[in-house]
Every structure is written in C-alpha cells, then in structure tokens.
C-alpha cells in the first residue's frame, strides 16, 4: 500500500488536486502564495509573553456558522473550553481521530508549560479560525476579526494549530 517508501512528507497539494478531479471538479484549487512574508519579533522575553491559541476546529453546537451556513470567527474561554469540538473538516479520518483535544488544541499542555515558566500565560480566550476556500474572506473579514480579539485580550503572540 505504501507508495512512499522513503517516508517523505505527504504531497497534500497534489493529493488534493487529484482527489477533487476524481470528484469531478474541473478547476484546481489555487493555494495562496506570497513572495514577501512578514516577520515580527517578540518585544519582550518569551517568559513574559501572553500567548493566544487559535484553532481550525469549531464549537460543538455549530454556533460559528452564520445564516448562510458560512463559518465565522468564534472564541471560547481557556478556563472552560467545550467538552467536545466540531472537527468536521479535512483531516485524516482513516488514520487517526480527534478525540483528544490536546492533540489539536493544546490548552492544558500550554497552561502547564506556562506554569513551568516557559511563557507568562495564555490569553483568556482561544479562538476559532474558519478554514475557508475564500482567501478574500480570510484576509478581509476573519483575520482582522482575530487580530481585534487578540488585542482585546492583550495577547503578545499567537500559537496557531491547524487540524
């Protein structure tokens, strides 16, 4: 079954193109590609930084969907996260599972690392970022909303975990 005996990382872009062609779609998805990548240094040591968590998972009740059914930015308290998350999106459902939140949204892990002094602590809320085919929606609506919420929470940096 293995077509990759060298253990090279999976070529997900090519896999996805072939899969959607097999579904009968004629136009390949075009992934974003930037020449210039921004870079911002931490202003203070990591041990003094407040870090926000951002996930691609959704809330269990689907409350992040608007009237048209499109996903929007959502947030939850790191002190009282939902018991479960909606992970109904593209991940490897045949090879693993998402029953353990810490494997994709490491709230307890990060809090433990903060208690050990690696960083100052988590921002009070974690945030859900929609995975949207519209790059325009991401850049004009979702990302600005996430920035707004991070600033509200006094976050110095963000750890983004993609399912």
């Amino acid at each position, binding site marked *: 079954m293995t077509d990759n005996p060298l253990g090279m990382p999976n070529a997900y872009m090519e896999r996805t193109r072939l899969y959607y062609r097999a*579904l009968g779609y004629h136009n390949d998805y075009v992934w974003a*590609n930037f020449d210039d990548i921004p870079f911002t240094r931490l202003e203070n040591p990591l041990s003094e930084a407040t870090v926000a968590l*951002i996930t691609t998972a959704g809330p269990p009740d689907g409350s992040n969907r608007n009237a048209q059914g499109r996903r929007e930015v959502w947030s939850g308290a790191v002190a009282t996260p939902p018991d479960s998350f909606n992970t109904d999106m593209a991940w490897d459902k045949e*090879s693993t599972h998402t029953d353990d939140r810490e494997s994709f949204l490491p709230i307890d892990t990060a809090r433990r*690392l903060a208690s050990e002094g690696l960083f100052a602590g988590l921002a009070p809320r974690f945030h859900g*970022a929609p995975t949207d085919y519209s790059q325009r929606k991401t850049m004009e609506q979702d990302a600005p909303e996430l920035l707004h919420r991070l600033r509200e929470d006094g976050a110095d940096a*963000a750890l983004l975990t993609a399912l």
Partner: protein
Amino acid sequence: MSLVANYLEANGIPTVIIGSALDIVEHCGVPRFVFSDFPLGNPCGHPRDRGMQAEIVALALRQLELAEGPRTTVRAPFEWTDDPDWRARYNLITSENRARLRATGDARRTQRGQTKVEAAE
C-alpha cells in the same frame, strides 16, 4: 491558517503554526512553522501522549524567540510509528472507489445548485 498568521504578523503579533501539511504551509510561506509529520488531525502530538504534546508545543513556543526571520520551519522530532501505511491512505483514489467518488461529487454539485436556486428565490 497561513493567511491568518501572515495577517497577524504584519500587524505586530508574532505567530507560530503547528501543522502537518508541510507542502501547503511552505507554498504559502509563513513566519514560523513547526512541522509534525503525522496524519492530519493531531499536529500537537499523538493522542493521549502528554509528554510528546508538551515537547511539540514547547518547541513551537520557543520559535517565537529563536527564529531569526520568516519562513522558519522546524521539524518536530517524532514519527507516526504504529501505522506505516498512513501516508498512502489520505484521499487515496483506487479503481474500487473511483466511481463512488464521482457520484459523491455529482451529488454535491446537485445539492449546491439547489441551494443556490433556493437562495435566489
């Protein structure tokens, strides 16, 4: 997620992504990336392996301080060891499932067309 990281970074928030789709993230280009070579779904470590999860998350957080510039990729020092066939399985297309996939796509397009008609009414 890559677009969000770039937007936040451009607006003064340092970011680091943990993920398992190396080619997609590097194609886009991001400031800092920790690559976990696992099946999509568990970027922060094997389910229930608290030690591994702590190491991967700490590795990522340290990049906020250690990375010297954008497009920094660090590979987490772990593998998906119990299931050697996982790489080939994702979105696998075979002679057995090809017709079913096409039917699934047709059904999606039909449903989407109906939704668009309803929305226009």
